[in-house]
């Protein structure tokens, strides 16, 4: 394993575990709002906020795991195309921040059934995630064939 690959793995391990901690904590916070019946979160008119914050929690945790899986993939399959790794790494890291952040910010301020402006982070974040996953997937395919 070359030095660059090891650095990428360490970076995604750090990112993945920290993100997992942050977004699991968000889950605990959301549960606490249920427990204490916080109207800001639970009132009948706050369906959008509830949905968006739940999505922030779920996507944050999921993408943390994806980043950890990416680090594990690099460790298990060091033959992955370096160019694909250079594309995937920033894409997965950025989407791991932007996607849950978009849901979170979209849920902080809502307009009735519409999320706040933060929700506009989600489409680019989704494209980054898609690009990152596609790069790894194709690299894995090529590596196997090679």
């Amino acid at each position, binding site marked *: 394993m070359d030095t660059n690959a090891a650095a990428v793995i360490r970076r995604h391990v750090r990112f993945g575990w920290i993100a997992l901690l942050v977004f699991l904590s968000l889950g605990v916070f959301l549960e606490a709002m249920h427990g204490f019946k916080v109207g800001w979160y639970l009132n*009948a008119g706050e369906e959008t906020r509830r949905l968006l914050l739940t999505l922030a929690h779920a996507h944050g945790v999921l993408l943390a795991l994806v980043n950890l899986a990416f680090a594990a993939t690099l460790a298990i399959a060091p033959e992955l195309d370096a160019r694909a790794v250079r594309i995937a790494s920033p894409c997965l890291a950025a989407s791991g921040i932007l996607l849950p952040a978009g849901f979170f910010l979209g849920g902080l301020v809502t307009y009735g*059934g519409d999320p706040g402006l933060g929700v506009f982070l989600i489409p680019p974040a989704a494209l980054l995630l898609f690009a990152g996953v596609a790069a790894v997937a194709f690299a894995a*395919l090529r590596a196997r064939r090679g």
Partner: protein
Amino acid sequence: MPLLARIAPTRARVALAAIGIWLVATAGLAVASVRVYPPLPAERDNTERPVQDLRQGYVSSITCRGCHPQQYATWHASYHRTMTQVATPETVAGDFDDVDLTFHGLRYHLEKRGDELWVGMDDPAWSGPPELVPWIERKVVLSTGSHHDQDYWYATPGPGRELRLLPLNFRVQEKKWVPFSAAFLLPPHAEFDYSPSKWTQTCIKCHSTYGEQIVDELSEQVDARVAEFGIACEACHGPAGEHVAANRDPRHRYPLHLGDGDDATITNPAKLEAARASEVCGQCHGQWSEREAGTDLVDSPERYRPGDVLEKQRIYQQFAAADPSRAQLDPQKHELMQYLLENEQDYLLRSFWSDGQVRISGREYTGMIESPCYRGGEFTCLSCHSLHPAENDPRPLKEWANDQLAPRMDGNQACVQCHESFAGAAALTAHTHHAPDSPGSSCYNCHMPWTVYGIMKAHRSHQIDSPTVAATVATGRPNACNTCHLDKTLAWTADHLASDFGVARPELGADESDVAASVLWTLRGDAGQRILAAAYMGWEPAIAASRSDWMIPYLSQLLSDPYDAVRFVAGRSLRLHPGYRDVAYDYVGDDAQIEAAQADVARRWTAAERRPHGAAVLQRADGGLDAERYSHLLSQRDQRRVQLDE
């Protein structure tokens, strides 16, 4: 070799194809999801009752819910929503668990058959010999109301979707079935209109959203459809189809969120000019005639929709419009009111006091537009009421739903938001001549007194005015002072109004000078006055201001009143007095039961310690009742038949 095969190996092509399919499928679903309205329950095939049919740009409250969850939730908690419901075990308040009832010689059996509700009964439409009345079984399909009471409609056999009214009413709070006629202020043995077209001609107008009546000219078969049962979002905001279409596009929505929110594709009553805003409520909470017969129930561009000028299609009945000075203002309205006042006094007195003030509930707009506050040009229903309480409103929705008042509008804040000079305690006391925190300093109690009757209770008048004894003498309508000071005479009130407010003192007869006004209304008054007097005798501020024990004989007397509704209100008020809470009394019970209840009340009153109140309440020096004068006043009772068309 094809280009794709050259640049991508087989597995990659499979993966690309899968991704392509996924993208196309996702895009297709996204497009499909924004183009399809959520379907209402399968309605078109229902032949038993009027159906919900989304036409003319109506989309239903379910569609509004997605973008306006807070507004939907508050509406959902309101009694507007449940004004008309498809009858199911979940929506009916009444007991349908194999209940057998007999009222006025007719038998009823109420039962559930799976998810259906059925009534078996002696045919209420039978006009032949009573001993031959057939037993019929009908499916109950719709209900009306859910707050105080609930009425039911059953399907009729044969073509068309005509309904008949079940001659039973379920009192929600008392959890009790009563005859339908006993839920209204009707003369004893009055013929009530149970005709099959009642719902499709009348109730549909205001107990549903955008009702339409369709009459087949050949067969004369009547059909009816509504946009939605109950008073739903589009009853006040108008058809929302254009609004929904425009706001599918986030480029339309987000500028509205970030700007002033004014969306020209929908009517928001809160943003209409004052008169138009109140008319949204007035489309139902008023007393009107159509300018052209039938236009209330026919789809046409002329038909009123929220935001329109209401009186373009309708005439709201105002006595003052008959005045010659108003002839040019609205000639059709002037002629109609002249005609009604000259030829239809009986009809008018079912809704109005003789001076034109509204006396039945549900006509608040008609009262309000006669108020000086309204004529100021800024006052609207929304000055005091809120149809969608804010998220931070501390009141539970169930409490708000009772009268849908805006926060703090249950007290003087409602008036001092404009009449600021009365905000301070000193100024208030100087004006009211009562302690600032007493009911006598409540703006509502003096300027919106309880002179309106409906749904078995007294309501506040929405014609804001000031009390005068002259109006009481002329119309019989209780004045605000004597709704609370029940032990005082009209002369006492006239003296105080003259000395404190400079109100001219009218000529008063002997009884009005030395007998308490409430005693006169109870003994001598007509049924409309008696029922209000009975309600006042159960009103906490009046009990506190007038002391209560002297009221018992009067309430007891009303327990056997010939009018069902008067008996009901008297029984309810009686039970609010200490020592009488557990009196066994059924207002629709037989004569023997009612006499037993009165005897029980008499025993308790005789045994109780009584405080001196004086001759105004016909009390002798020894504390007993002046039976001679009592009987004399009772013999003068106004026996005219009173029917209030709430």
